[in-house]
C-alpha cells in the first residue's frame, strides 16, 4: 500500500494526519474551514466545547518541543478530551522498551489518539501502520520529513490575511534542507494553488532537487523578496553551524537575516511568518519580528484552532457510519 493512503479511510476522509503530500485541495480547505469554526472557542468565557469528551489522547514526544506540544495539549483540552503527555526521551524507552511495546502499553490504556513527534523521518507513518483500527495518529513533526499541522496553521494564517491563495507569491527563507516545515509548506501551498512559491537561502542549505517540487530558487535575499505577499522565515538550527554548512551567525544574518530594509523589496502589505522559536538577530531582526507586518504570535493562536479541527475530524471520522452530506439534524 502506498504510504499516503494510510491517512484516509475507505470514504476518503481523514483518519490519520501524517503528511500534506497526497491530500487534495478540498480536504485542506475542509481543515481550514473547521479551524475557523473552532477559532472562536478560545475567546469565550468557557474555552471548551464537549466534542471529544471521553476521548483520551497521548502526546508522544520523542523529541523535545514546547510550543507544538502545548498547543496540541490546549487543543485537546478545548475539545474536552483527556490528554497525557509522555516525554519519551526520559521514560521507558530509556529503559530499553521498544517503540512497539510503548504503543501496545498505551493502547492497553485505551488511548484514542497518538500525537507523535520524532527525530526520525517516517516515525509517525510507522506508528500509524501499527496501531489498532480505532486509534488515530497525528504527526507533530518527524525528522526533516514533514510537519503538517504547522503547514496548515500557516495556511490558516495566510488565508486570514490574504483571502485568496491563487494570486499569492510566497517566499520561504532559510534552512530549507533540514526543514520539515518547508517541505510541508511547499506541498500545502501548491495544493492550495498559490501562483508562485520561492525558496531563498545559501546553496549549502537548499536541496539540489528542490525545483522538482515546482518552486523557484533564489540565493539572493533581496531578489527573492521582490513583490512577495508572504514571507515564511525558518529557524536557523544552530546545530547546523557546527557541521560547517555556514560560516557564522553574523555572516548569515548579514546575508539572509530579515531586516526592515530588506523587507522593502516585498509588497507593502507583506506578512512575515515564523514557525518559532525565533533566533533574534540570526534569521530575523527584532524590529521585523515585533513589527506591524509580523503575524508570528497569531500563528500560535491559530495553531490551537487548526489542531482542534484536525483532532475533531480524524476522531469523528472513526465513527463507523457512512459520511452524511446534509441533514443529520434531529431538532
Amino acid at each position, binding site marked *: 500500500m502506498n504510504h499516503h493512503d494510510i491517512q484516509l479511510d475507505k470514504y476518503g476522509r481523514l483518519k490519520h494526519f501524517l503528511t500534506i503530500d497526497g491530500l487534495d485541495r478540498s480536504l485542506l480547505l475542509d481543515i481550514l474551514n473547521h479551524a475557523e469554526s473552532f477559532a472562536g472557542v478560545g475567546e469565550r468565557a468557557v474555552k471548551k466545547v464537549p466534542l471529544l469528551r471521553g476521548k483520551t489522547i497521548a502526546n508522544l514526544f520523542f523529541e523535545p518541543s514546547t510550543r507544538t506540544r502545548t498547543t496540541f495539549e490546549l487543543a485537546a483540552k478545548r475539545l474536552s478530551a483527556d490528554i497525557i503527555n509522555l516525554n519519551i526521551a526520559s521514560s521507558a524507552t530509556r529503559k530499553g522498551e521498544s517503540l512497539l511495546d510503548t504503543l501496545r502499553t498505551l493502547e492497553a490504556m485505551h488511548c484514542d489518539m497518538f500525537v507523535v513527534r520524532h527525530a526520525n523521518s517516517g516515525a509517525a507513518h510507522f506508528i500509524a501502520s501499527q496501531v489498532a483500527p480505532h486509534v488515530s495518529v497525528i504527526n507533530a513533526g518527524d525528522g526533516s520529513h514533514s510537519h503538517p499541522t504547522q503547514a496548515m496553521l500557516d495556511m490558516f494564517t495566510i488565508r486570514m490575511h490574504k483571502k485568496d491563495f491563487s494570486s499569492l507569491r510566497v517566499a520561504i527563507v532559510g534552512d530549507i534542507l533540514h526543514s520539515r516545515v518547508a517541505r510541508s509548506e511547499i506541498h500545502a501551498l501548491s495544493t492550495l494553488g498559490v501562483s508562485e512559491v520561492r525558496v531563498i537561502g545559501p546553496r549549502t542549505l537548499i536541496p539540489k532537487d528542490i525545483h522538482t517540487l515546482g518552486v523557484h530558487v533564489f540565493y539572493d535575499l533581496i531578489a527573492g523578496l521582490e513583490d512577495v505577499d508572504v514571507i515564511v522565515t525558518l529557524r536557523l538550527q544552530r546545530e547546523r553551524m557546527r557541521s560547517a554548512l555556514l560560516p557564522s551567525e553574523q555572516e548569515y544574518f548579514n546575508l539572509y537575516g530579515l531586516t526592515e530594509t530588506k523587507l522593502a523589496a516585498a509588497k507593502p502589505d507583506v506578512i512575515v511568518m515564523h514557525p518559532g522559536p525565533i533566533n533574534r538577530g540570526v534569521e530575523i531582526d527584532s524590529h521585523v519580528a515585533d513589527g506591524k507586518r509580523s503575524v508570528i504570535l497569531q500563528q500560535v493562536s491559530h495553531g490551537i484552532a487548526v489542531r482542534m479541527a484536525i483532532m475533531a475530524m480524524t476522531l469523528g471520522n472513526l*465513527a463507523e457510519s457512512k459520511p452524511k452530506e446534509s441533514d443529520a439534524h434531529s431538532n
Partner: protein
Amino acid sequence: MTQEINQWLVNMAGDLQDMIRNDPLMIGIHTGGVWVAERLHKLMNLNSPLGQLNIAFYRDDFSRIGVHPRVQPSNLPFEVEDRHIILVDDVLHTGRTIRAALNEIFDYGRPATVTLAVLIERSGRELPIRADVVGKSMTLNANEHVKLSGPEPLALVIKAAE
C-alpha cells in the same frame, strides 16, 4: 403558506412581548432558527443585536456521525450574564438540539432566564423540554420530517423519511 407562517410569527412576537420584559437578548439556532429569529427580532423591535448559535460542537451524536461539514461559528455579540434570553429554533422535535443549545449558552455565561420560542412544535420529544411560545403544533409520525426552507421566503416541507 408564507402568509400562514407570517401570521404564526406575528402571534409569537405578541406572546413574547407579553411574557418578556427587561430588554431581552434573542439567539437563533443555526440555520432555520436564525431565519425565524431574524423575523421575530424585527417584529419585536429589539435593540440588542441578534445572536446566532451553532450547536454542532455540542451535539450528542458525535461518536456516530463525526464533525458536521462547514460549521458557521456561533456568534453571540453580547454578554449573556444575568440577561433574559429568548432562544429561537424552527422545529422542536426530540429536544436534543435545545439541550445542546442550553449547554452552549451556559459556556458563555449565566443568563437570568431562558425562554424558548419555536415556529413548529411537533411530536416526538425524547427529553423533558418544552417550548414557552409556539407558532404551530403538529402531530407527526416518527418517520415523518418537517423542515423549514428559507431564508426567503420561509416555507415548510413535510415528507416521510426515505
